[in-house]
């Protein structure tokens, strides 16, 4: 039994379950938020998987998701700006919770990895993940608002 994989299963189960349910039901604003938060939760899950399988090369997946997940949310935030301005999604509690999960996972993995290239990469992923997550939430709650409204 591998504690890392257990933690990864827990994070992924919560992230994917909540994300899937949130993105399939409810008003548009909630769906976009769920899409954003599912990427924010899956990324720490991927980091834990890399650690659990003992493969540092799997970290590239988390790096790519930390980069492109928020970009995907920006796509929706920008192209759905008109629909979202009427009812801007505000889920700062959940956003900060997801960011905290990411921060905890990155910190623990950094402590395990010790100083070196792996740690730099992990810190980069953590910064991209948390920064991207917060910025994507910001973009959703009126980042493209005033546009076209005179």
């Amino acid at each position, binding site marked *: 039994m591998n504690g890392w994989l257990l933690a990864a299963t827990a994070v992924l189960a919560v992230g994917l379950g909540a994300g899937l349910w949130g993105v399939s039901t409810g008003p548009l604003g909630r769906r976009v938020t769920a899409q954003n938060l599912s990427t924010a939760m899956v990324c720490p899950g991927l980091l834990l998987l890399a650690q659990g399988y003992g493969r540092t090369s799997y970290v590239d997946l988390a790096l790519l998701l930390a980069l492109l997940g928020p970009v995907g949310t*920006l796509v929706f935030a920008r192209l759905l700006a008109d629909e979202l301005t009427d009812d801007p999604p505000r889920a700062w509690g959940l956003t900060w919770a997801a960011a905290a999960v990411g921060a905890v996972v990155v910190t623990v993995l950094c402590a395990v990895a010790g100083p070196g290239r792996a740690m730099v990469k992990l810190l980069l992923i953590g910064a991209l993940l948390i920064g991207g997550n917060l910025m994507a939430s910001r973009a959703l709650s009126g980042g493209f608002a*005033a*546009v076209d409204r005179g």
Partner: protein
Amino acid sequence: MSRRARLWLVLLGGSGLAALLVAACLRLPAFGGARHPYGDRAVAAALARRTANTIASVNFDQRAFDTMGEMSILFAAVLGCVVLLRQARDEHRDPPRPAEVAAPVRRYALSTLPVALVTGLYVIAHGQLSPGGGFQGGVVAATALHLMYLGADYAALERVRPVEAYEIADALSAAAYLVLGFAGVLAGTAFLANTLLPLGTFNTLSSGGTVPLLNAAIGMEVACAVVVLLARFLDQAVEIVEENVRENGKNGDNGTNGMDGKNGENGENGE
């Protein structure tokens, strides 16, 4: 045929297909089994060619000819899109108004752009060592460029993205793949045979013979193809307006599109 009849036909055919698929699934080798004759041989061959990432070795060495086929599908699909989405005679371009993006979002997009570009290049360059390669890295690099549209506006993207240059680069990199293949023929072996270059040291950037070169060609091809593809879609979605739509918009009856009447015909362009 009515919708109801069609649905019944689909259900009938679907249940037949489902039965066949389940029967096939039950007879497949059990999931997670230990017998993978092709896989074991591919791993051995990749190690013999000193390529650390076996998948890259399969793609760009052992099955390089098939990858050429994949590349031509990609090329043809992009060509098809370019033809389908070209500007027609009854259409004209309406430059969109500059977007107003919240300052932190803009800063985030513009500062992530170089990071994403470098990551894309990293994924391409390390294709024969760690997970990654031309196909993945190319898409990442091309997507990174479009942060310019998402975070700033369309005009800014157009300044950093001369589409013609990318179209030429797309064709050139596709040609580079072929030239690398024919170089093998000229050297006296076979098309795309990996005998041209020294194999190098295992697990370094220059290992694997022609694998890194073919990988780089594919990376460039995919990146340029995606940029051209997205450029056509963006043109259509943001800039190109049909004449009759525009005139009707001027007649004032565009309350249905949910935009303010002030912007008239290019209401949704402004974004």
